[in-house]
C-alpha cells in the first residue's frame, strides 16, 4: 500500500507544466487537496486531486487525504475557473472520506460537499474523475460528479467503510470483510452497476508505460467529450439513472 501512487504522482506524470494554485479564498488552504492548471498534450486543463502524501510527515500535513471544507471549496473555486475559461476538468480521487473534526463541522463540511455536488452537476465543460485508491463516501463523490468515472483495478468506492458498516449493522468491526462483500465496493462492482465506465489495469502500475497509456485514454476521452453535445444534460441523466427502486 505504501508504494501505491498518489494523486501527485499521476498529475506530474500525465500532465506538463502543472502549476499548483492554492486556497479557497474563504478561509484557508487545505493541503489534502491539490489543484491547478496544466497541459494535457495541447489542451489546457484544470487538474484537482485528493493527496494523501508519501511519507509520514507529508501524510500528517495532508491529513492522510481527508479534506476539510476548505479543500472542497478550493476544488470548487478551480472548477468555476475551468468553467469560465472553458477548460476540461480531470480529478483524481483518493480519500477514506471527508475529515471528521470539530472545526470541519463548524465550517460546514456537509454544506461544502453539497455545494460541490450541485455545482459540478451544472458544469458545461468535460469532467473525468479517476478513483485511484479509496473512494470514501460523500467526501469522494464531492469531486466525482463527472461525465466519466474510471477506477483503478484495486480501487474501492463505497457509501461507508466496511468497518463502519459492520460496527453499525452487527456491532462487530471484525465482520468488516463480510460487510465489504455486501457493500459491492470494488471497481468491478461499480462497473457492473454503471457507476464507473472503465476499470484501469494495474499490471504496470506506476511505470512510464502505465502513465502513457492512461494519458492517451484521457486525451481520447476528453476530445470525444468536447464534441459530445450537451454535457450538462447528459451528466444529469447519468446520475438520474442510478436506481434500485420500483414504481
Amino acid at each position, binding site marked *: 500500500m505504501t508504494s501505491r501512487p498518489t494523486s501527485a504522482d499521476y498529475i506530474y506524470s500525465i500532465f506538463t507544466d502543472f502549476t499548483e494554485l492554492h486556497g479557497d479564498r474563504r478561509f484557508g488552504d487545505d493541503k489534502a487537496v491539490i489543484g491547478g492548471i496544466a497541459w494535457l498534450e495541447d489542451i489546457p486543463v484544470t487538474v484537482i486531486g485528493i493527496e494523501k502524501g508519501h511519507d509520514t510527515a507529508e501524510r500528517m500535513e495532508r491529513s492522510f487525504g481527508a479534506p476539510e471544507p476548505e479543500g472542497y471549496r478550493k476544488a470548487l473555486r478551480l472548477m468555476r475557473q475551468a468553467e469560465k475559461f472553458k477548460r476540461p476538468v480531470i480529478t483524481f480521487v483518493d480519500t477514506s472520506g*471527508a*475529515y*471528521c*473534526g*470539530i472545526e*470541519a*463541522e*463548524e*465550517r*460546514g*463540511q*456537509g*454544506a461544502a*460537499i*453539497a*455545494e460541490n*455536488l*450541485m*455545482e459540478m*452537476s*451544472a458544469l458545461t465543460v468535460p469532467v473525468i474523475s479517476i478513483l485511484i485508491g479509496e473512494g470514501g*463516501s*460523500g467526501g469522494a*463523490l*464531492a469531486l466525482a*460528479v463527472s461525465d466519466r468515472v474510471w477506477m483503478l483495478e484495486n480501487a474501492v*468506492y*463505497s*457509501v*461507508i467503510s466496511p468497518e*463502519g*458498516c459492520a460496527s*453499525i*449493522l452487527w456491532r462487530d468491526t471484525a465482520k468488516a470483510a*463480510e460487510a465489504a462483500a*455486501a*457493500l*459491492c*465496493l470494488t471497481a468491478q*462492482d*461499480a462497473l457492473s*452497476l454503471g*457507476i464507473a465506465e472503465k476499470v484501469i489495469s494495474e499490471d504496470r502500475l506506476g511505470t512510464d508505460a502505465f502513465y502513457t497509456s492512461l494519458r492517451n485514454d484521457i486525451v481520447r476521452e476528453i476530445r470525444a467529450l468536447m464534441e459530445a453535445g450537451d454535457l450538462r444534460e447528459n*451528466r*444529469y441523466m447519468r*446520475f*438520474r439513472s*442510478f*436506481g*434500485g*427502486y*420500483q*414504481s
Partner: protein
Amino acid sequence: MMLNFEHKAVNELEKEGRSAAPLFGEAEVVCPNCHRTLKESQAEEMMMTCLCGHHFRIGARKRIGYMTDENSFQELFEDIVSTDPLSFPGYRDKLTKARSMSGEKEAVLTGTASINGVSADIFVMDPGFMMGSMGAGTGEKITRLFEHAMEHGLPVVGWTVSGGARMQEGLLSLMQMAKTSGAVRRHSDRGLLYLTVLTDPTTGGVTASFAMEGDIILAEPGATIGFAGKRVIEETVRQQLPKGFQTSESILEHGFADMIVRRSEEKEIISRLLRLHGYGR
C-alpha cells in the same frame, strides 16, 4: 406492560414523538429534555413540543397535518419504493419492519399542498422509517418532486430528518446525493425557490446534499444537524466535543442556517417567505 419498559426504550419512543401505551387513561409522553410528563393531548396542542421548548420527533403525516392547509396535501409518487438491488443481508426484513412500524412505504413523503393558501411541492422525511435513511426510493421521489415542481413552476419546501445514506444499498444510495443535487440545481436555474427545514436529526449524506442546498434554510430548535457522527468525530480528534456542538443553534451561529423557527411558527414564516418570492398571488 409500560412498567416493564426500560428507561432507554421509553426515551427512544419519546424522541419519535410517540408515547408508550399506558395501562389506564390517556397516553402520556415524557420530555427527554426536562423530564416533565405531558398528556399526549397537551403535547399535541403544542404541535408535539414541550413546555420547556423541546421539539419531539414526529412522523411525516403528523407534520404534514401541522404544516399544510386541511386536506390540501395530494400525495405524489407514493408507489416508488426502494428494492434490494445488492441483495444485502437482512435488508428485506428491515424494509418490511420499517414499513410496518412507520406505516409508510418509504422514508420520505412527496406531494403538492397549500400552506396558508400558497401552493408548493413538499417533501417530508419520516424518522420512523429507518431514521429517514436515504435509499434509491427516497432519492427518486425527491428528484421527481423537483422535476414536477419545475414543470408546474412551483417552489419546493422540504423537511429533512435523516441518519444519512442507506448503506444497505451501497453505492446506489451514495449516488442519490448527486442525483438529488442535480435536480435541486435544475429547479434553481428556473428561478424557483427551494426552502428547507432541518429537523432532528439531519445528518450524513442528507446534510451533504439536498438539506443544505436550500435558498433559505430554517431549523427547528435543538435539532442535531451535522455531517459526521459525534462518535466518529470523538474517535478522530480524541477530545471532548464542545457544548451545543452540531445543534441548530450552533449552525446558525456559524452561518449555515438562516433562522431557527419554532414548530408553532413554521407555517406562518414559510408562507410569508413564499409570498415574498411572489408565490400565492
